[in-house]
């Protein structure tokens, strides 16, 4: 498969899961795109008992109602949870790609997903949905192949990665580079992995997913495992303990090189690039129905990013519904405001189904 960088990648494996049943017309399929650290396991229980990352919203009677829709979630290329990425074996060398893996973009991720949708025999998706980096893929879908999408749900996302977001990405990457176990990315052969660097990158990430208010609510100034200040540098505040826990847990399931590649893909994301303006990028997307959602306390992808998106879509005459939901949860709100999201998504999808006269199973 050709990549934006000019290089090619292949063969490609894409991990995916599906829920619900495809109708006879193959017109009720919804593609779910995951965020930075997500995977194909979006809903239900995995064989080892793990709940899917968006199980709150995908399932019978939920926002993406699997009694009605055929839901597909695929892992992105560059990832490390079953899809081809830097930890996969390079067929040319017989060893893991490591930094020999080509740099990929959001458009490359979508290119790979398109092969999956072809493979599933779906000509036109009822909807593409996702939050954060998932939202970038959603937007990319509507620009790269608008003729294959009826509706798009970009949630808590942006049309271009801002300098602040690039800055956070870079600090995360530098944390990994600085880990002596990283060794130029060639750490797959023996046991020592750049876990300290990866955990630190994840800790930074988690700060950006919360809001000051949600940190107040969640942790306050509470101490963890201590009654009084220890006057030392041990982990003592609850928020510190939370970040350490999240960082360490992340190293159990995520590959440091994948983190480098995926954050880089996000940094390169700029929909208007090569089109002149955002509105021109959406020039062929006017037939798609959009539901754009932002959250008031999301400072990582603030609502004006979504408003910019809505402005461009309005200018091309697209049918766009926009909601800036009140929430204290920060960027994570798209996963946590379940009640409002369920209502909003279900109602919106119902309109898409009615508008296109889709026959549901």
């Amino acid at each position: 498969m050709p990549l934006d960088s000019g290089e090619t990648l292949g063969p490609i494996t894409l991990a995916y899961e599906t829920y619900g049943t495809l109708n006879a017309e193959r017109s009720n399929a919804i593609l779910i795109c995951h965020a930075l650290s997500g995977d194909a396991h979006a809903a239900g229980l995995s064989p080892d008992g793990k709940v899917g990352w968006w199980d709150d919203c995908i399932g019978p009677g939920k926002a993406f109602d699997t009694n009605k829709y055929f839901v597909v979630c695929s892992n992105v290329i560059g990832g490390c949870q079953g899809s081809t990425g830097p930890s996969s074996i390079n067929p040319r060398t017989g060893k893991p790609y490591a930094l020999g893996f080509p740099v990929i973009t959001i458009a490359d991720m979508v290119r790979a997903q398109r092969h999956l949708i072809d493979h599933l025999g779906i000509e036109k998706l009822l909807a593409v949905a996702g939050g954060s980096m998932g939202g970038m893929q959603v937007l990319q879908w509507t620009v790269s192949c608008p003729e294959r999408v009826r509706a798009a749900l970009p949630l808590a996302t942006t049309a271009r990665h801002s300098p602040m977001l690039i800055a956070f990405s870079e600090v995360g990457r530098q944390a990994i580079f600085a880990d002596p176990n990283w060794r130029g990315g060639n750490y797959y052969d023996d046991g020592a992995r750049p876990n300290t660097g990866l955990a630190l990158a994840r800790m930074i990430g988690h700060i950006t997913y919360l809001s000051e208010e949600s940190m107040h609510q969640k942790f306050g100034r509470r101490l963890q495992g201590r009654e009084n200040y220890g006057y030392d540098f041990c982990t003592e505040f609850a928020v510190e303990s939370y970040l350490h826990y999240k960082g360490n847990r992340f190293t159990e399931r995520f590959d440091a090189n994948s983190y480098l590649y995926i954050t880089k893909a996000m940094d390169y994301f700029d929909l208007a690039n090569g089109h002149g303006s955002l509105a021109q990028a959406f020039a062929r997307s006017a037939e798609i129905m959009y539901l754009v959602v932002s959250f008031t306390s999301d400072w990582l992808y603030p609502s004006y990013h979504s408003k910019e998106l809505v402005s461009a879509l309005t200018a091309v005459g697209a049918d766009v519904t926009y909601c800036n939901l009140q929430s204290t949860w920060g960027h994570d709100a798209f996963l946590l405001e379940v009640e409002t999201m369920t209502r909003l998504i279900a109602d919106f999808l119902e309109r898409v189904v009615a508008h296109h006269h889709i026959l549901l199973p």
Partner: protein
Amino acid sequence: MTQFPLRPDLLAIAELVSPGEKVLDLGCGDGTLLRYLIDTRQIVGRGVELDEANVLACVRKGLSVRQGNLDEGLRDYPDQSFDTVILSQTLPYLDNPAFIICEMLRVGQRALISFANWGHWRCRLELLLHGRMPQAPALPQAWDAAPRARPLTVRDFIEFCAREHITITRSIYLGEADRRLRAARLGENIRAAVAIFEVR
């Protein structure tokens, strides 16, 4: 799906809309009017609304709606991209009504504007006899209530249109108890509780 009975001032607006029109409703509230227009006149409708609960109500009604204030909402629409732009009972709440009305006529071929009339005789008597700031019969809201409303009368609006070279092509007046006043008779500014104007 429409809630009945439709408010008489909304019904009066709806009667001015032709089947199949493209309609933008500014400050569309819970979407009652747009839904009615879609159901009865098969219009293509878009709404702009500030309040989150109202936006959710609109989506539930199967409407395409943008959350935002009207300045933001209007700026993005290309010139003459709608047949009709509606501003129903929202005019007194606007910070910059002259700008919004001009914008409405930029994006739409015509605007339908309804508002409560403070020129009503009850308002005049209230101020004259009791010295209290009158509340419009169609918008009974105390001076200290939020959001702040800026009172206007039918005459104010007519004079504004003349000044701004906006043409009033139709006017409908509803009296108390929502009875429609015959346009030929004088004294609308004294008798009308609600006025509806079609301007171009």
